[in-house]
């Protein structure tokens, strides 16, 4: 149940899988994404409402064949240059897009978690998106009203980051919880990285608890949500998001950065050590 992240990725994530690494600005599972890159997963369909830096990295390193998403940017900074390069210029390979609205993505995850084949919402009305994505119409059998239907998300693997697990593998996260519960419950398999293992999960306000028996693997990854934050553990690294704009703008700079900080490091501790080392050198 509680295994090293490298083992969990090796066992549960295969080339060609549909993988959702979710986190809504908080608790983004970056360490798990880096491990996918280290293990050179290919042809993934990546799902996420808000792909940001770690998705930019996965796309730029050639792990992804397709992206299913609703907003792909560097929050507060601007574009994701690797995402743009893949879409606009096909580098390092073309990236198929399946684009939704947030409401549609959320409904698709909730439907998946509920083992329904589709989610229903008032959405996708007018505009150019409906013609470009997977959406259909359902008619209310009672009122005759037309509503939008989105196909449920049922990823092969759901990956999230949480603050804590206990020794049996029960997981607790708190603060902004996004679609993480739905991601785990909608997925065939799931990996949860955590800041730490504790003896006892202390009940907290605004907590989501996922019992061990809905999770495939729990892995310890301290600071594993960097550059996002983990409430109660560390703050968002706002400077990193700004710096990423520069790093990611150029293909060679990006590849060299990924080599130094991800490919040449063994795990999340190595990743952070490499960042510290670089800062020290630069200073």
């Amino acid at each position, binding site marked *: 149940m509680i295994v090293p992240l490298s083992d969990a990725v090796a066992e549960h994530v295969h080339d060609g899988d549909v993988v959702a690494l979710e986190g809504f600005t908080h608790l983004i599972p970056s360490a798990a994404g880096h491990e996918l890159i280290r293990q050179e997963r290919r042809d993934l369909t990546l799902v996420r409402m808000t792909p940001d830096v770690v998705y930019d990295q996965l796309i730029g390193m050639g792990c992804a064949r397709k992206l299913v998403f609703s907003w792909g940017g560097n929050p507060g900074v601007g574009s994701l240059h690797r995402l743009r390069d893949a879409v*606009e210029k096909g580098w390092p390979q073309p990236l198929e897009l399946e684009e939704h609205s947030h409401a549609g993505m959320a409904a698709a995850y909730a439907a998946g978690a509920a083992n329904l084949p589709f989610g229903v919402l008032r959405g996708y009305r007018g505009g150019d998106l409906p013609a470009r994505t997977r959406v259909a119409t359902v008619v209310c059998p009672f009122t005759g009203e037309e509503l939008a239907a989105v196909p449920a998300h049922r990823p092969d693997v759901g990956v999230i980051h949480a603050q804590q697990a206990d020794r049996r593998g029960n997981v607790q996260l708190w*603060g*902004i919880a996004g679609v993480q519960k739905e991601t785990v419950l909608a997925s065939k398999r799931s990996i949860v990285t955590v800041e730490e293992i504790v003896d006892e999960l202390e009940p907290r306000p605004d907590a989501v608890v996922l019992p061990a028996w809905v999770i495939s693997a729990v892995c310890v990854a301290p600071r594993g949500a960097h550059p996002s934050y983990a409430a109660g553990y560390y703050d968002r690294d706002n400077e990193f998001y700004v710096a990423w704009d520069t790093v990611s703008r150029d293909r060679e700079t990006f590849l060299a950065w990924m080599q130094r900080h991800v490919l040449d490091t063994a795990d999340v501790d190595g990743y952070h050590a490499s960042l510290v080392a670089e800062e020290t050198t630069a200073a």
Partner: protein
Amino acid sequence: MSMNGDRPYTADEMMAVEASRRLTDDNVCFVGIGLPSLAANLARRTHAPGCTLVYESGTIGSKPARLPLSIGDGELAETADAVVSVPEMFAYWLQGRRIDVGFLGAAQIDRHGNLNSTVIGPYDAPSVRLPGGGGAPEIALGVDDVFVMLRQSKRTFVDELDFTTSLGDNVRVVVTDLGILEPRPSEDGTVELTLTSVHPGASADEARAATGWDLRVADDLAETEPPTENELTALRALETKGRS
């Protein structure tokens, strides 16, 4: 942030102040990051302390002491009345029509208030792939009043959108760095965004020159009230308050 001639405030500050004025104490307001968040938080610190801020990350009734840097900023959760999941936010709260005002930005706007935040160029071969709609398509139709904040230029105020991300049906006002556009019926009965006010120092001609369609100007064109001392003080306190 550009200086605004010799006026003691920037264009962004004028935009934030003017947008904030349109919020009332009773509003429940869906807020994004950047200028909308600045405007909504300013309203809470000036004339509308009861205005409720809702962020799409799931925080309801956030009362941030400093301006959030992302819509999922920890401060928003810590100061919220309630934190809900993202599916609940979109289903029960937005779709449930519990939110009356929504702020939107975009890369392009047309005369009907339709917005593009998806692509520049063709969808299948874009010259610029933008971040995408996010919450905008359902916010645009799920609140009573949409406020758009957008700097005005021929590149952003276009005759025809490259892609329609969200519809303009509920757009009540567009606050730009030059003035205020509101939907007004014309002689031929069609409603389109019309310049109803210019900010101090800006002119209707300047606004028309920064618009990609033949911009209508209201007969009763007004001049926007400049930021008051009180508004500017509150605004700058918000902007400069750093992370503790």
